[in-house]
Every structure is written in C-alpha cells, then in structure tokens.
C-alpha cells in the first residue's frame, strides 16, 4: 500500500507512538501486580527479594479457600446453566425464517449488556431479600441463577456465530436417512456445534468469575466469592496476598481465553 518510501498514506503522525504508550500503560500495572505478588517484603512499593510468602499466606487463609470454592461452584453452575439455555435459544433463533417476536428475543437475551450492573444488583437484592424472608432458603442458588442470567448473552454469541456458519445440508441428509429428530441432533448437530458451545461456556465462566457488584448485593453471609473477598479486604490496608490471589485469577482467565481463541479460530 505504501506508494513511496517516505510517505505512507495509511500512516497517521504519532499513531504508532501513542499506541505503543497505550500498550505499555495497559500492561505495566498488571505486570507490576504480578511481580510484587512474588515480593518478600510487606510493602507493595519496595522490592525485598523473591519469595512465595504471599501465595503461602493466601493458601493458609481459610476465608480465601472458602471464597475460592464458592467462586468455582457459582461459576461452574452459572456456566453450565447459561450455556444450556443459550444453546437452545441459539438453535431457536438461527437457520430458520424470521418470525414475529424475534427482535423481542434478541433484546431479552442482550438485556443484561444494556442495563448498568448496579441497577440489576439493586433489583436482585430486592427480589432475593423478599424470597429469603419468605422461604428461609439462603443457599448458592440465588447466585447461580443471577449469574446464569447475565452470562446468557456471552454464551449465546459464539454459539450463534458457529450455527450461522453451518448449513442444514447434513441435517437434511440425516433426516433423509430416517434419523429421528433427536438422533439428528445428537449425532449431527451437537458434534458440529460443540466448539461453539465450549467457547460459549468459557466466556460464561470467565464472566461469572469476574462479577463483583451483583454478587456483593445478593450474597448471604459467608458466601464471599474471590472478587467480593478482595473488595472487602480493601477496607483495611492493602495487603500483598491480594496480589497473589489476583495473579492466580489472571492466570486462570488467560488459560480460558487462550482455549476460547483456539476453539473459535477459523480454519484456513
């Protein structure tokens, strides 16, 4: 595209410099956080040598262990539930003629992306407080269903994208060979759709794992997840074991994201 050596039409003066600074600014704080999680000293500003003290401290802390379990249980439950619902909804809204009410279905599915999280959190607080009072149930069910709801759009997107890239030829062939609807789904559609479903489940899992605000509002006592535990710690002095937990969460997110990109990568 460059016409002459000294003048490239696509070059905007300063764009390269600004974007390099942006990438440095985006990653430097995260790298500092990771590095200081291995710091030997009490401080998060003075380097006192390499150590795993803060990981040991986090590991020995029962509250952290408990919060990790709650986080994993809620994220797993929410990911499974939202992915199942999103898969069904995606099958219902793709590869068929447009129907009345389709826009309504899209708006409903994407609704959690449009409403500020704090408003949803307040709304769920009112509802769960009333249900808790009426039924006495204070289990993890509230968190799982609430997380599943806001994870649905994230699970739906990759599944729908995958479905739109699949034509109906194979399903028609299966039906021509006297496969029942269920057999066609089980043996043809589902295996082809699987990468999309797994990708959707991963996004849902990451989204649930990240949530702070909604969880903070509707959790019952003793139901801290890792993010709400960390937020609670901030009321006191900042402690480096939060860095260690953050680093582990970051690593988990990165692993899931890499898996997501491998699953959705277009084959050449």
């Amino acid at each position: 595209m460059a016409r002459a050596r000294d003048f490239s039409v696509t070059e905007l003066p300063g764009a390269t410099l600004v974007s390099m600074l942006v990438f440095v600014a985006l990653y430097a704080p995260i790298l500092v956080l990771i590095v200081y999680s291995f710091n030997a000293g009490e401080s998060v500003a003075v380097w006192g040598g390499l150590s795993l003290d803060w990981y040991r401290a986090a590991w020995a802390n029962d509250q952290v262990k408990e919060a990790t379990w709650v986080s994993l249980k809620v994220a797993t439950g929410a990911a499974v539930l939202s992915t199942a619902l999103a898969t069904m909804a995606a099958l219902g809204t793709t590869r068929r003629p447009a129907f009345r009410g389709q826009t309504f279905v899209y708006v409903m599915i994407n609704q959690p992306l449009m409403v500020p999280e704090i408003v949803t959190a307040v709304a769920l607080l009112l509802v769960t407080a009333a249900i808790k009072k009426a039924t006495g149930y204070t289990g993890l069910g509230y968190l799982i269903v609430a997380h599943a709801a806001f994870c649905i759009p994230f699970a739906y997107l990759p599944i729908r994208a995958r479905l739109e890239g699949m034509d109906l030829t194979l399903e028609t062939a299966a039906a021509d060979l006297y496969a029942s609807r269920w057999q066609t789904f089980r043996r043809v559609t589902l295996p082809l759709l699987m990468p999309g479903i797994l990708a959707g489940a991963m996004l849902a899992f990451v989204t649930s794992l990240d949530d702070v605000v909604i969880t903070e509002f509707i959790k019952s006592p003793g139901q801290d997840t890792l993010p709400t535990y960390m937020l609670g710690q901030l009321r006191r002095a900042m402690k480096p074991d939060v860095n260690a937990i953050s680093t582990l969460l970051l690593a988990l997110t990165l692993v899931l994201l890499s898996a997501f990109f491998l699953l959705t990568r277009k084959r050449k």
Partner: protein
Amino acid sequence: MSPAEEAVRRENIKSAWQLSAPALLVLTVAAVGPLLIVLVYSFLTPGTHGNVEWVFSLEGWRGVLFDHDIFEDKLVLADGNLTIFWRSVKLSFITTVLTFIVGFPTAWFIATRSPASRAGWLFLITIPFWTNLLIRTFAINQIIRNEGVLNTLLLKAGLVSAPLQLTYTDTALLIGMVYVYLPLMVLPLFATIDRFDMRLLEAGYDLYASRWQVLRRVILPIIRPGIVAGSILVFVPCLGAYVTPRILGGGKNMMIGNFIELQFGQGKNWPLGAALSVTLLVIVTIALLVYVKAISGERKNG
C-alpha cells in the same frame, strides 16, 4: 402458500419459541422482572431497619432532587445529590473523550498492521477486556497511589520533590476509568477502521488534501458509527460504575453507583435507592436511544 407449507411454517415458529422459552424465563426472573420490582419499591415507605413498609409514598422520588428542611418545614434542592449526579455525568463524559483521544490512534495502528500481526495486537487489547475489572483497578491503584510505583519512580528520578497526592482525587478516578474502559473504545473503533477503504486516503492526498483535512473530512465521518458505538460502550458503564470509584475515589468522591449502594447500606432508605436506580436507568436508556438514532441516521445517509 399451500396448507402443507403453512403447517411447516407454524411448526417452525412453535419450535423457535419452545427453544427460546427457557432462556427467556431465566432472563425474566433474574434480569428483566426485578427491574419492575425496583419501580414498585421506589413508591414505598422505608422500613426502620432497611427494607420497606408496604405503604404508598412519594418520599423516595422526592428525595432524588429535594431535601426536607426540618427547621423551616419546606423543600430545598438537595445540593449533595445534584453534585453526585453532575460529577458522574461529567467524569463519564471526560472519560469517554479521553478514551477516544488515545483509543483512536491505537485502533488505527492495529487496523493498519499486516493481517498476520493484526490478530496478535488485537489479542493484546482483548486480554485486559476480559480481565477482572477489580484486579485491573487494584493494578492501576498500586501505580498511582501516594506511596505507589509512579511516585517512587518520580522521586528517585528527581522529577518531583514531594509525592503527587493522587489518592482519592477525581484525577485518580479519571486515570482509573480511562485505564479500565479503554478496550471498550478500541474494539468497536478497530471494527470500523478495519472495513475502511484505504484507497479513499490516496484519493484525498491526490487531491492535495493535508493530513488534517483527510482526518477531518474523510476518516472521521466514515468511522462515525464506530465512534458512537465506542462512546456508548464507555459512557454507559462509567455512569453506573461502582467498583472503580469505590476503590479510587474513596468515601468522598462518590458516583451515582456508590450513592445508590449507600441507600441500601448505611442509609437504610431503600425507596430512595430504588428511585435513584430508576433515574440512572432512564439516563442510560436515553443514551442508548441517541445511539440507535445516530446509527439509523447513518444507514439512511450512507
């Protein structure tokens, strides 16, 4: 349409709804339905220990804008509330502008790389997008707080004689919000620049346009949908932000999100909190409508 075709069509529609129904049910129970309950609660009377009494009252809504002056028994404008609203809108707006100023060159840079390296640069923007907001807020806080990395470096380099006092200031909050919401600006900008026909630039330069004229008259008008999308994606979550102002703004520099939370915590005024939530939702809806209008206007003109 033959009766057989009609039957197939009906069957199709029926299965579409049956398959969507479970998702719609969960969304109704745990996302849309509760919003209606908020509206109902905003018209009730606060209970003494939080929660509500089921007695109709407009006090919650009155409290959004007015204070009750107990000495003179009259209503006065609630300056504190208005300040919080104004600060939220102002900070969200400035954040949106700042993310555009640094996000546009970044998106342009990524979109003009070779196809092979483009995916890599894009992945670098996507990672922070999916990284826990709380962790990113911690990370930036460790850099900018009074005894943080930035001040340590500045002091060592002799650039400042005393540490910059950024903790719990609006500046700290702005830096934090630009940091956490920047990917939301870069991604939609990249999507529109990626579709931009670079030959238009050659045409512009061939007609002796300056770089500035090409930017003003060619690039910016064509990528406008991306600018609008990015601005909405940054502005809306900024306005409802809770975590970032709580950590970086401290107790004093509240935004609407924190003020709402206060009503359900120490404030013990659930109807006021509900009314404030509805107000925030209305502001966000207006912003979204502006967005839809801008996009559809774009289609008509383009």
